[in-house]
């Protein structure tokens, strides 16, 4: 799947920098789903992803005046998100918390607010099941990649960032980005082979 490129309105960023709370709110509404999904794919955990995404937008709010080039809002925001994910990951290694969602039994009539996660809908139940199964396997394999490879893979494959932008965010060369992505795919292929997932399996499921 190709990530949807968000249209950045430098005017919106300018308004947010001048202290317009409404513009900041618009930016958050526009970018929260992307940053949440980046963090979700990074951690494979909804709670940690929510935490990292919220911290990212708190940092954005506090530091938006430091952004000199408004055209670079997107890589700037992903830089914050990447740092927050690493920070959260380090904290997570020190303190492994269990959320109440994990501890308490889930109720059938869970009245979740509309901004919480809702699964994608498919018309075909079998297809939905297979899609979820495959998604879960891919999720598991991505979590087994090293942090460096995982970051590059998510930014490129799911967030649709340019190699130049990823290099800028991670402060490495473009060739290093490409090299990490190549090895990420090689590693992914081996992991998927172990799960008996290959091109022919996917084609059969389709």
């Amino acid at each position, binding site marked *: *799947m*190709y*990530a949807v490129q968000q249209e950045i309105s430098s005017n919106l960023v300018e*308004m947010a920098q*001048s*202290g*317009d*709370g*409404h*513009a*900041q*709110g618009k930016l*958050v*509404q526009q970018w*929260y*789903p992307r940053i*949440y*999904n980046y963090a*979700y*794919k990074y951690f494979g955990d*909804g709670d940690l992803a929510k935490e990292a995404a*919220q911290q990212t*937008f708190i940092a954005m709010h506090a530091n938006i005046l430091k952004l000199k080039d408004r055209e670079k809002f997107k890589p700037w925001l992903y830089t914050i998100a990447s740092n927050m994910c690493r920070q959260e990951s380090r904290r997570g290694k020190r303190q492994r918390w269990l959320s109440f969602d994990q501890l308490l039994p889930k109720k059938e009539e869970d009245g979740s*607010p*509309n*901004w*919480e*996660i*809702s*699964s*994608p809908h498919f018309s075909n139940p079998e297809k939905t099941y297979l*899609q979820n199964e*495959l*998604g879960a396997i*891919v*999720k598991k394999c*991505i979590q087994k990649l090293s942090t460096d490879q995982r970051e590059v*893979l998510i930014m*490129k*494959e*799911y967030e649709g960032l*340019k*190699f130049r932008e990823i290099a800028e965010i991670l402060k490495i060369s473009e*060739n290093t980005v*490409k*090299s990490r*992505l*190549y090895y990420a*795919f090689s590693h*992914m*292929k081996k992991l*998927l082979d172990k799960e008996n*997932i*290959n*091109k022919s399996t*996917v084609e059969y499921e389709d």
Partner: protein
Amino acid sequence: MKTEDWKEKLMDYLYDEMDEQEKIAFELELAKNATLREELQNLQGTRNIAGRWEDETISAPPFFQVHKNESNKTQPGGLKWFMAIAASILLLIVAAKFSELQISNSGGAFKIAFGKEISNDKTLAASEVDSLISSALAGYEEKLQKQRKEDFQSYLAASKNDNRKIITDYLTALETSNAAMMQAYWKESTQQQEVYLKTLLSDFAAYMEQQRENDMDYLIAKMELMESDKDLFKLETGQIINSLANNNTQETAY
């Protein structure tokens, strides 16, 4: 060239980030390099599978949705600064009015006065001001020295009397305490000697009494011994007489 050496190009081709010339050259290489072609197919296959992980559908949490009315609190920076400066100047003018501030800038001298009219006529020359300051300072220094001397003398006089009184008091107290101490010593000593002599005399009397009793006991014992010796002698004498008498009687009978 190994497949790994093509990894950057493979990634560029996979994500269509090559320019036209590079793309043509890479496709020519693909056409003749089966291993590279296979590697590309593998990468495309893996990418296709990885793409099956769908995004989560989510919207921003409500606490991030800042209301528009907050933006009204901020005004353009220029107007804010202008208003702030204008308010400051107005405040200064009001303060100057109440404090009767007068400012003059004449004859190369800038002066600020509060409550009095500035007069430029009665100005003094710099040398006059210097001499006035010097004389004032000299007078002040002289007065200060005189005052210091008087203070020092009065301090000495006061301290002399005080010291004399302190020493006299001290000596008197010392003398009194010495006399009291000596009297106490002699009294104590006399009492102790008296007690000692009394004890000695009573001990001696007791000793003499004891000695006399011992002597008497001894004399009595001796006299009793002599008396018993006398009785024994008398008895022996009687026995001798009796035996003599018996002997005479027997001789007469023969």
